């Protein structure tokens, strides 16, 4: 296992020279530089890069420092802008306690998928643009007083799609958690299975759920956190089988995409369809937790779920 502690560079917190020259100071130091958080695809329309971020929902300009301190949640409308896996981990774990697993695992184009663009070139592009190896980061961490397995997906890598690497890394994490008798937290965000890997990607659904079956059988807690968006193959596997299912406000969560549903049924979709709030009303989600409270709530839940645990685990299969 590779042990990783966070450095500013890994988190993308190091100073990056903006692509656009600052209109304020003609590249004068101080103004032109900004602290930029990890690779993000947040849209910044018509704004000079540097000091302000425009909320993706209400359009209010938010001072970057405040935006970052608020974990990219708009302080005015509470819109939860997507954040990357590393930022999320940083926001959840105790400093320097995240021991990353399988950091060097990368996808292989075993089908030699030839679409419009080859899978191989896609992978290279995304590795370059996101600084990630694939769409999930896994490891063992400490959260409050709890040691726990933590897997966090990143939507910016190929839409958070689940291929062999996502499936394998999560399965190893789950197996490690079972072996070490640790609770497990998976923060999901995904468009679904990665079709470039064909049936291998579908099988990751069965693989991760099989590992979770033995984790559950050992009476170890698993908390699934759904963030925007979590759909399709990921929603139809590990994301849906938590002892607790939590969600971020406003997250889009579902099985089929809204366009597919509309095309198939020719019906108007109800307001708020497939949002976290909609699904809480319909009984799927235990609680909707704002991003800034997530860590404290997870610690609180783990406190309940690890009380007086009956230890009668079956030996895990090899």
């Amino acid at each position, binding site marked *: 296992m590779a042990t990783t502690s966070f450095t500013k560079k890994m988190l993308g917190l190091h100073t990056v020279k903006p692509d656009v020259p600052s209109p304020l100071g003609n590249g004068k130091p101080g103004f032109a530089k900004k602290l930029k958080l990890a690779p993000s695809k947040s849209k910044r329309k018509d704004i000079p890069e540097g000091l302000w971020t425009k909320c993706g929902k209400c359009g209010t300009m938010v001072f970057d420092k405040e935006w970052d301190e608020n974990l990219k949640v708009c302080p005015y409308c509470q819109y939860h802008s997507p954040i990357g896996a590393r930022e999320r981990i940083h926001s959840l774990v105790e400093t320097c306690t995240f021991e990353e697993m399988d950091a060097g695992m990368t996808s292989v184009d075993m089908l030699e998928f030839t*679409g419009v663009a080859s899978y191989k070139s896609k992978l290279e592009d995304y590795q370059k643009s996101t600084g990630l190896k694939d769409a999930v980061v896994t490891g063992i961490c400490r959260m409050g007083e709890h040691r726990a397995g933590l897997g966090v997906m990143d939507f910016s890598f190929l839409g958070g799609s689940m291929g062999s690497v996502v499936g394998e890394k999560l399965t190893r994490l789950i197996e490690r958690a079972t072996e070490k008798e640790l609770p497990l937290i998976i923060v999901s965000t995904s468009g679904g299975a990665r079709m470039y890997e064909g049936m291998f990607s579908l099988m990751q659904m069965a693989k991760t759920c099989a590992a979770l*079956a033995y984790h559950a059988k050992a009476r170890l807690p698993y908390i699934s956190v759904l963030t925007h968006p979590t759909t399709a193959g990921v929603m139809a596997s590990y994301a849906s089988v938590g002892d607790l299912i939590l969600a971020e406000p406003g997250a889009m969560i579902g099985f089929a995409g809204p366009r597919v549903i509309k095309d198939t049924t020719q019906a108007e979709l109800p307001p708020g369809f497939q949002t976290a709030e909609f699904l809480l009303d319909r009984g799927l989600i235990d609680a909707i937790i704002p991003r800034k409270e997530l860590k404290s709530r997870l610690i609180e839940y783990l406190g309940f779920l690890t009380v007086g645990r009956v230890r009668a685990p079956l030996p895990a299969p090899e």
Partner: protein
Amino acid sequence: MRHQLDFEKPIAELQAKLDELKKHPDTHSLGISFEEEVATIARKLEETKRQVFSNLTPWDKIKIARHPKRPFTLDYIQSAFTGFSELHGDRLFAEDRAIVGGFACLGPHKVIVIGTQKGRDTKENIMRNFGSAHPEGYRKALRLMKLADKFGLPIITLVDTAGAYPGIGAEERHIAEAIAVNLREMTLLEVPVIAAVIGEGGSGGALGIGVADRVLILENAYYSVISPEGCAAILWKDRAAAPKAAEALKITARHLLELGLVDEVIPEPLGGAHTDQETTIRALQQCLLKHLDALVRIPVAERLRQRYAKFRAFGHYHEEEAALAGNKSIQPQVKT
């Protein structure tokens, strides 16, 4: 001929010629006898069939897999099994007729058989929702599987669905959760489980009843993470590119066997299952029996271990040397 596939045209023409000749024996060509001409055409027909069917593209096979005259789940249940006694409902919300299930006998074995069921005509298709189940279908399937597990009955599932139903009600009642729970629970079933893809193996909707000790597939069936049309729409921005997507996704029975994703391909009669239902049903029956006979002999713990290992092994990835070396030591380095 209704439901004729484009590549079946030369076969159909020869067949029509042969039928015509047999109907009017005196119309045979000059110079050769009636019997000789029949034999010649029959030989040519056989050759053409062989030629056409050995050169099918993945897209052709998908057309066969979706053929409305192909045997469906209930055809197999009625002919390959005996004494089918259907059980209904998920005990939560409704009876979903897109998935059928119940008691049946397969040879000497009393089993629970479950499968997605398509309809043959519009009326039946409306009742069966075109073989696309709602959450209730998956929850009924799980209820029956738990019943089987409790009372020691092996489980056979027959998969033939374009996918789980993408509808408003399905989302409101959490179809993703229904499938996910099945994936988890099927891992722990202590009875033997065999899944056979008999037509369409459409994504999560197929896998939702597809976690098994043995996964079998008929020669012209397919099993895919996404429909070729859906994949084409996303990657090629054009549903008409489905034949290309079908090729790229490697979803035919032969491809899946080569990739190690299925355990056995069950051959269909020349011309496809839709031209000879009886032979196809016998072939599936024999294959199911063979595997079930083998599976019941394996002790429970070993069978569970094998089932886990089977799904555990799926996937291809690359690991950096350093990471590999690091992985061997479970103890993480302690940061000071």
